């Protein structure tokens, strides 16, 4: 009884405090916007500082020269070639395997422990630190399979790293296919593979391509796993085959950043602008593909 009365008295003493509460609302809205602004301001700061440092250093000579001990002569040719080689082989492995794994999980796997197990595995692999993939690559591809510290070993390592991204994106793309398309195909007597091959994959293609470009842009920026498998940091040549040794742009940037001469900070900045430029092109490509292909349906 006493407690009930107390509550009643407090209710009677209720003051709306509208002024304070309105101010609270306004402040809460404001600091939310400020938090986002801080994040975006850091991004702008990073881009502007790096861009300014690259001015005068990013030129044709930089793109077409090999690395050098002298900042004025240093270039990113070996790194650009290495990145292209590694990326081509990474996608060669990860694209078909990732897409097929997603098709299995969405179209073939019966509900049950096996599907759940594979699904949890893929979710966990997506959050394993990238450097752990480097140790896996070092032990399995470099040592056991005796591929050496080659383009192929690096590409296989990165392929495993980006596999979860491709699987999840492809699964989502397949899930977005309307069930009526499947039903129509089966109704005409098509087998499961015919339905997938001729109806589901074409429909899901924009989503699959976008997922693969995202995966490739993740792989292009990775350096830790490739350093771990022993990619070179000073390379005065371009790879001639998949078993050659290599370097990639992020490793080259890391190497320039760790050099003593102050001018190498400008060389590193030029490398960063090239790397971010490639990433920007790829992501614009992803958006373009999605927009262009959406119109077909």
């Amino acid at each position: 009884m006493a407690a009930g009365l107390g509550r009643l008295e407090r209710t009677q003493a209720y003051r709306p405090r509208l002024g304070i509460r309105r101010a609270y609302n306004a402040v809460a809205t404001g600091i939310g916007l400020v938090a986002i602004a801080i994040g975006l301001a850091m991004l702008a700061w990073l881009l502007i500082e790096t861009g300014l440092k690259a001015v005068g250093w990013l030129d044709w000579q930089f793109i077409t020269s090999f690395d050098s001990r002298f900042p004025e002569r240093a270039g990113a040719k070996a790194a650009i070639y290495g990145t292209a080689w590694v990326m081509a082989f990474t996608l060669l492995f990860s694209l078909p395997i990732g897409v097929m794994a997603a098709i299995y999980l969405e179209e073939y796997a019966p509900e049950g422990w096996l599907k759940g197990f594979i699904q949890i595995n893929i979710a966990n692999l997506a959050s394993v630190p990238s450097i752990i993939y480097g140790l896996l690559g070092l032990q399995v591809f470099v040592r056991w399979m005796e591929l050496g510290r080659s383009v192929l070993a690096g590409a296989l390592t990165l392929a495993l790293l980006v596999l979860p991204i491709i699987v999840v994106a492809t699964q989502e793309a397949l899930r977005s296919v309307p069930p009526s398309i499947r039903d129509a195909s089966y109704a005409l007597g098509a087998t499961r593979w015919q339905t997938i091959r001729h109806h589901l994959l074409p429909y899901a293609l924009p989503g699959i391509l976008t997922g693969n470009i995202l995966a490739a842009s993740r792989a292009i920026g990775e350096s830790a796993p490739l350093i771990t498998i022993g990619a070179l940091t000073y390379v005065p040549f371009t790879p001639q085959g998949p078993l050659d040794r290599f370097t990639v742009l992020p490793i080259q940037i890391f190497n320039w950043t760790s050099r003593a001469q102050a001018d190498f900070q400008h060389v590193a900045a030029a490398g960063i602008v090239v790397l971010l430029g490639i990433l920007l092109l790829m992501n614009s490509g992803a958006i373009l593909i999605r927009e262009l292909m959406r119109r077909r349906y």
Partner: protein
Amino acid sequence: MTLDGRTSPFTPEQLGYKRSRQLKEGAVAAVMFLAAAVGAITTAGIILSLIGETIAFFRDVSIVEFVTETEWTPLFSVKKFGIWPLVTATFLTSVIALLVAVPLGLLAAVFLSEFAHPRLRAFLKPALEVLAGIPTVVYGYFALTVVTPFLRHFIDLSLFNGLSAGIVMGIMILPTVASLSEDAMSAVPQSLREAGYGLGANRAEVAFRVVMPAALSGIAAAVILGFSRAVGETMIVAIAAGQNPRFTLDPTVPIMTMTTYIVQVSLGDTPYGSLSYRTLFAVGSTLFALTFVLNIASYVLVRRFRQEYD
């Protein structure tokens, strides 16, 4: 046989398919299964390759020394194998990163989910996601050449330190924390918000006293996943935090995280089967175990959260 919308309700025999067609169907299914198995094989491969070399490591170094010694000098003539300096450095940079990413990320998430007009949200969310797409080596460069010199105007700081590396890492994981927390808050049923408004609460009161508590396990999952990212992050700390294994929590001096150690040894020439080669895997196992526990905790929290409102 039941029709579940994805499989043909008829067996191949009923449809009168030729045997060759059936064989092809079976072969395709088998290949697809093998591709999906790569995921499980990768996990097994990670665990096996880590465990093999780690066991070999502990044949030479006692596990007691590994977890009690406070010095890490495996490449010196007097070798000491105490993991603690690497663990404290990893912990220090990750906590600084969380101190940046959690307040900013949560406020950003609340704003995007509860306050922002859908059109503003459609612009701000992808803009924030760009932060997650910047390669980590670029963040490392930014921490070393921009943030450290800037902070040196205000405090006494070594060229390599845990503070700038941690701050920049916080900016890197901000989108992870923000976007997962926002997912959690958006999943809170509209009826809870409407009940709040019905009682006369304003937007901020509903956001902070109704939606945030309701989304708490999802937000916790986001923070834990952010922590796991920070623990496993390599290039930022390798470039900006230093390469000096030191048993300290001082953010102004050079330190060495677990990931930095792996990079440092990998850059040198480490013969296969040597003790320094094995230290890579001992440190790697510790790192993997730590992030694995964090990832599972985050996964469990997200699932619990989804069950609450499904």
